[in-house]
């Protein structure tokens, strides 16, 4: 309550300032600053091992941060369990952990939040509500009695999101919801993200695909090797810049050379190399622009990249 008396008109729902996490001597995450307000989507981008999971776990209450601050609605917090985070309205939809495959959809929907009628559960109400709530989110299921494992990956994600929305989540953390999905299903999930945003929720959308992040996001955090590469508002960064930063331009260039060297005797590989070369050329253009937003002049976010390009 003390630290939020700054110029901001609206207290963000979730705000991390210079937060980090060490596992013993291993620095898993360092210097992360982000915020998400109501009706906002904050995207966290990063390759494998960038520290995305650690970040989610801190926000979701599975782990505790060791550095910096974590505020929920202006109040500093350190969650001891996911339950505590849930009680503050922070719900996480994990990539694989979202549901129990063998259980019917409605049992999954209400798992941990069962409607009780005396000592028992109100089965009829739970079945009807699950069906209705999913319908409201635009998911038309054949039968809420079917095991949730029989649904498609996209449908399962959507059930998990609808569940979090229904149980009064203010902030949704989505852990790579589109990673294992095809183009069409990814589109469906992205639509739900927008829908959740329109219902007034704050969404933290973790992904490694800038093409999924850019259209729906308001703020963008890029992680690399446990560090923040920077934090941008949407008007401070373009799609091309985002892609460039994600891919890591110089690394891609190296890969191109390698492919070229290997590809002198194979036309197929040469073709791949040419495609990469083209992409790198585009990235160089992007790199030129990125120089400025990395140290944002706006000051509204207070973020500071810890490292320039290695």
């Amino acid at each position, binding site marked *: 309550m003390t630290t939020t008396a700054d110029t901001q008109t609206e207290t963000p729902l979730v705000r991390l300032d210079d937060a980090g996490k060490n596992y013993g001597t291993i620095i898993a995450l360092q210097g992360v600053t982000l915020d998400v307000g109501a009706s906002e989507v904050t995207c966290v981008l990063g390759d494998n091992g960038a520290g995305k999971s650690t970040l989610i776990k801190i926000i979701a209450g599975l782990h505790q941060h060791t550095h910096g601050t974590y505020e929920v609605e202006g109040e500093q917090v350190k969650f001891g369990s996911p339950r505590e985070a849930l009680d503050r309205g922070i719900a996480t939809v994990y990539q694989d952990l*979202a549901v*129990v*495959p063998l259980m019917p959809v409605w049992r999954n929907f209400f*798992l*941990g939040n069962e409607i009780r009628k005396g000592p028992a559960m109100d089965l009829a109400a739970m079945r009807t509500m699950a069906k209705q709530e999913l319908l409201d989110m635009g998911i038309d299921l054949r*039968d809420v009695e079917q095991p949730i494992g*029989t649904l498609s990956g996209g449908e399962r994600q959507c059930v998990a999101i609808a569940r979090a929305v229904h149980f009064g989540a203010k902030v949704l953390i989505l852990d790579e919801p589109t990673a294992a999905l095809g183009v069409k299903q990814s589109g469906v999930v992205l639509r739900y993200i927008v829908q959740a945003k329109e219902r007034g929720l704050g969404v933290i959308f973790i992904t490694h695909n800038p093409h999924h992040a850019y259209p729906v996001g308001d703020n963008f955090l890029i992680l690399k090797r446990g560090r923040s590469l920077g934090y941008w508002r949407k008007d401070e960064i373009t799609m091309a810049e985002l892609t460039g930063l994600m891919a890591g331009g110089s690394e891609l260039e190296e890969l191109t050379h390698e492919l070229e060297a290997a590809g002198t005797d194979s036309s197929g590989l040469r073709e791949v190399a040419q495609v990469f070369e083209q992409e790198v050329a585009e990235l160089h253009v992007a790199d030129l622009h990125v120089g400025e937003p990395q140290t944002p002049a706006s000051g509204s976010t207070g973020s500071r990249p810890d490292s320039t390009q290695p």
Partner: protein
Amino acid sequence: MSQTVDVGTPPAPARDERVGQRSTLSRMLARPEIGALAGAIVIFLIFFIVAPPFREPSSLATVLYVSSTYGIPAVAVALLMIGGEFDLSAGVAVTASALVASMVSYQFSANMFVGVLVALVVALAVGFINGYLVVKTGIPSFLVTLGTFFMVRGLNLAITKIVTGNVGTNDVSDIAGFEMAKNIFASQFTVGGVAIRITLLWWILFVIIATWVLLRTHVGNWIFAVGGSAASSRAVGVPVNKVKIGLFMTVGFMAWFTGMHILFAFNTVQSGIGLGNEFIYIVAAVVGGCLLTGGYGSVIGAAIGAFIFGMANQGIIYAGWNPDWFYFFLGALLLGAILLNNFIRSRAEASR
């Protein structure tokens, strides 16, 4: 909670045209216990045909009695298995409960119920230790309870020898409170000339309660969930560790109950009995449709599984077959039941 009152009755229950009319039969076939039921009917018919004494009502009463002594612990073992865990110490925990109750009351000249309560505490403690070790160490329950199985087995023999100087306990039938305890745990009554043991009623009661808890309460929802995916359950706020420890303690409770029956039915307890029974409880649960990996199963199925065991156990005697072959037949019957169970389940799932 969002309430949409204005819509009148929500259209949700209306039939979805994509769900073909599922017949009552195919709905029934999708239940986990259906394979066991089919197996039980086949085995019943076989013995009914080949063993004339098996057709007597009193034989059925005996079969049901034998089934109940295995079926009562199997209720808890099935719940535990649905919750994703094993308990190999259940068989010797039965014996331990009976030994403790008997020795405490006899040695301290206390009322029988003092021993009964101390035994309950011991049985729950064994369950708690099993559960605590499993959830805190993450070691598979197969190994943890294998360890406690040998420990309890050793304690049964060693402590009984130290206390009584013998391998069995002393007769407790003239201790105060014995009659009342016997009425609760080991009495019998006659219905239409057939003697029925009270364990049958307890068994039915436990099956009803456990089924209700499993299917109708939030705790049942959690049991399915922790067995199906502990990580997912934890993530949505289910107290996974409490549920698992509670399930191990439920096994302890049922082991205690069975131990009390043995004590008050026979007045003395041999310290070496109960070995191998844990497998029969597990087999009853598996035959009854519980998945070894957890998350799926039924208590009614486990009861049918115990009934299959009871029929095989007694039916071979009624049929006059050489009892040396009992375990071979038992294994074959169980394997057959499991195969049938699998076959029917996969058919049922395909027809969904």
